[in-house]
């Protein structure tokens, strides 16, 4: 469903060029919950930004469903972001002037697809993520965990092909983190969502089906959880991270 092939991306800072992605390839299948891990500077957020169509890649291919992103013009990319992708940002990026329900409906309003059915779906998402009681509140009036669950619900409103999450548990305490991970699991299990999450947190990653570990701009290792227990998978991830640190 998502196929990334030989992706390259570099940044120019002054006279120095930093090559952040040096040929990343990965794929995410429908219904998967994939984590992208790696140390700081490994290129995981850059990879996510390229997939999100926020920044153009220098070379390589990103195919989302039927669309080759590099071939789309700006308006088509906007449509992809609106219809085929859902986003969950690290600092939520909820609009303070809109209520929780209005924030959830925002992608549908932007896409012009809002209908009574969409509004009903928003209410269903509130039910699923346990935020029905706060749906008329403003972001300033709710907790960090509630904000993040609102963000997950917003990402789901247009039934996207893929939800992209960037360090979505980074700003949360362990209880709220767990609530957000549960939200992702519910989204996958109950609503059939496909999720790609960037994280440096092995606890969060251990809930995923598959973890892609980046190092120095390339895929260093891909680890499948398979049928093993979450804690065992987390230990396996921690061992891998230790191994990577040793060089």
């Amino acid at each position, binding site marked *: 469903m998502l196929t990334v092939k030989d992706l390259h991306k570099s940044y120019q800072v002054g006279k120095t060029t930093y090559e952040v992605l040096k040929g990343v390839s990965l794929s995410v299948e429908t219904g998967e919950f994939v984590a992208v891990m790696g140390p700081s500077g490994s290129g995981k957020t850059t990879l996510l930004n390229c997939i999100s169509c*926020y920044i153009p890649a220098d070379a390589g291919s990103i195919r989302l469903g039927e669309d080759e992103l590099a071939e789309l013009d700006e308006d088509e990319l906007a449509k992809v*972001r609106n219809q085929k992708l859902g*986003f969950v940002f690290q600092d939520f990026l909820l609009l303070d002037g809109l209520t929780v329900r209005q924030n959830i409906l*925002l992608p549908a*309003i932007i896409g012009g697809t809002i209908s009574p059915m969409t509004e009903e779906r928003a209410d269903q998402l509130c039910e699923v993520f346990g935020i029905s009681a706060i749906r008329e509140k403003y972001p300033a009036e709710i907790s960090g965990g509630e904000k993040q669950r609102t963000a997950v619900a917003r990402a789901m409103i247009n039934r996207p092909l893929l939800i992209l999450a960037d360090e979505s548990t980074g700003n949360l305490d362990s209880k709220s983190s767990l609530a957000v991970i549960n939200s992702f699991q519910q989204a996958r299990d109950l609503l059939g969502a496909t999720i790609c999450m960037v994280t440096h947190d092995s606890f969060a990653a251990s809930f995923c089906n598959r973890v892609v570990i980046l190092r120095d701009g390339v895929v260093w290792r891909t680890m499948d959880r398979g049928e093993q227990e979450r804690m065992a998978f987390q230990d396996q991830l921690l061992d891998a991270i230790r191994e990577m640190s040793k060089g």
Partner: protein
Amino acid sequence: MRQFSQVYAALRRKNKGQYALLALCSFFSVLLITAYVCMMRAPTILSVLPEGGDSRKQVMMVFVLAVIGCAVFTTYAAALFFRQKSRETGVFLALGASRGQLRREMNKELTVIALLSCAAGAALGGPLAYGVWQLFRLFLVDSQEMVLSFDPQSYLLSLAFAAYVVVMLFVLGSRSIRRTNIIDIVQESHKSEPIREVKGWYGTVGIVLVVIGAVGGYLMPTFFVRVLHWYAPSGVTAIFYLPALIGLYMILLHTVVNGWRKGRQYRDIIATSQMRFQGRQTVRNMLVMTLLIAGAYFASFYAPMLSTSSAYSFDSRPVDFEYHYRNDQNWPQREEVEALSAEYGVDITFWAQEGAAVLGTDGTVSVEQDNGAMGATYTVEYREIASGATFFSESGWNALTGQNVEIADGTCANVLDDEGGSDYLSGGDVTLITNMVTRESLPVTPAEPLRFTMLLGCYVLSDADYAAITAGLTDCWQETYVFFNVSDVESSYPFADALFNEIVDRSGPEIEVFDAWDMVERELEIAEKGSYDYDSKEYLTANRLAVIDYDQRDSTEFRNYWLYMPQFRVLDQNDFVTTMAVFLMLFIFIALICFAAVIVISFTRCMTIALTNARVFEDLRRLGAPNAYLFHSVRGQVCRVFLVPAIVGTAAISAFYLMIMYFNDNRFTPGEFAGMGTCAAVIALCSLLLYAVYRATLRQVCAVLRVRRQRG
């Protein structure tokens, strides 16, 4: 909520403060500029600001400052608005909104904000100027020439500024959406304004450049005229002030970034480092504030300087009443004046009356050559008869002035003013005198100059020489000078006014002339080309020179420029404010506008700093910083925004003003000292006003940052 426009409306309601600030800044800047333009271009004002004159240049200079100031703070308010909105824009783009979609919504908002605020500012600017002027007339001073009328064309300048505001808003708005990198937009609000490294020598070099610019800018025009014989265009002379502007910027940069007191670097670390991050924009704002404060003071000094030095000169006159007339005029004689004084109950205690003669004098004349855009050059030619001057005999002089001078035969003494402050107005030494009726000439050598301000520019000959050279003069070449005192000057105003009106009523059309009108030059010019330019009202009007009209006897032009204007102490003292009303009010108005702009800029800048630093103060609070420390840091920043421009602006303009006064005659006269005292009082008063605004702003900033205010 189903439409994207409804989302925008909801966000607008939530962020109405941001919209209000932008609209207010746009409205305020257009309002100020419109009011200024209406005032500056009003026929009433233009009539008293001679074309090419210093007053008009000063008004234009301050206008340019006001335009720059208003443009800067409006642009900054707009940039701040879009920066605050960038998060929304980024979220919309991230969630799949197209740029076109966003542009449409933003354009709708901007159209309403820009058009309404600019239209309101432009519409109310005229009434504001008119209203302020009427208030001046009502509460301060009124005169027949103060009836204000507006030139509709002045609105073109106002519309041009409004157009700038509208275009600037749309360009900045479009630019904020056009960014290709959504990540940048999302993170825009976390960006700071880094400042380039500022070397330690910036402050010192800045001061040197300010001095070079001020001295160069002031002296170069004199150098051009005296040495190069070149009347340079104002644009050329203005270039020499440029180092002063660059110097000011360097001083402010050094003050903001490096500070002057190294020992306090760590104590003020938060205020200093936060200002660094706000650097570029803050320094630009502070530079504009500095220039506006300097402009405001420059305008503010006009009224006290003029009134104090004038009051001093009125008080220091040796006689209460002086008038002089051509002998072919039917002016009131002694008996008539005494009769009029008796009618008004005024007791005349001293009377002196002496004859004088208008004779031709030799000297140099400037022959100008117009070089178009490059100004004009001139050559100097000696002429045996160059212009005219009034001559007294030694005995006549002594009788009139009470002095006891002796003038040797064959010599001629030039009369200078008592203090030496206006020597440049005197004609200088002459070596050849000519009777314009008989064409007899008398070679003379310059004698020691005499001092008598009321007769500045006249000459004194020995009795024998005077009798010889004035023989055969007709009445129109002879004058009578009258000096008299009264017992109670204060109560003699009605008499003085009646006498003044009697004099004007009895003056013939041949002396309805301004003070540059010269009978000798007229003779020469008529002989050469058949007419004298200064006889033609059309010529005078076209060249923006004073046109004397007996029906406008209370106007500034008449009182200041009539060649035969009497000098009645009580009349001048009482009518001074009325006579100079237009000037005084115009400069007060300019000062008000400049100070208003300074207050708005400083307030918005400080509030911006507060908003930008909110997170830093929250972190400091979490780190356990006591309230006293937080307050010290807040005050450090707010104080710097107010204090630095106030000190630099005040110091710069004071030094510049002192320089102007000193270089007028290479000394300070007692009148100038008195004026400086009044200016110091104006500075104290305005500083108090700025301090009050500073306190109010500090209170507001503390409220935003949730920091309690403390004493000390």
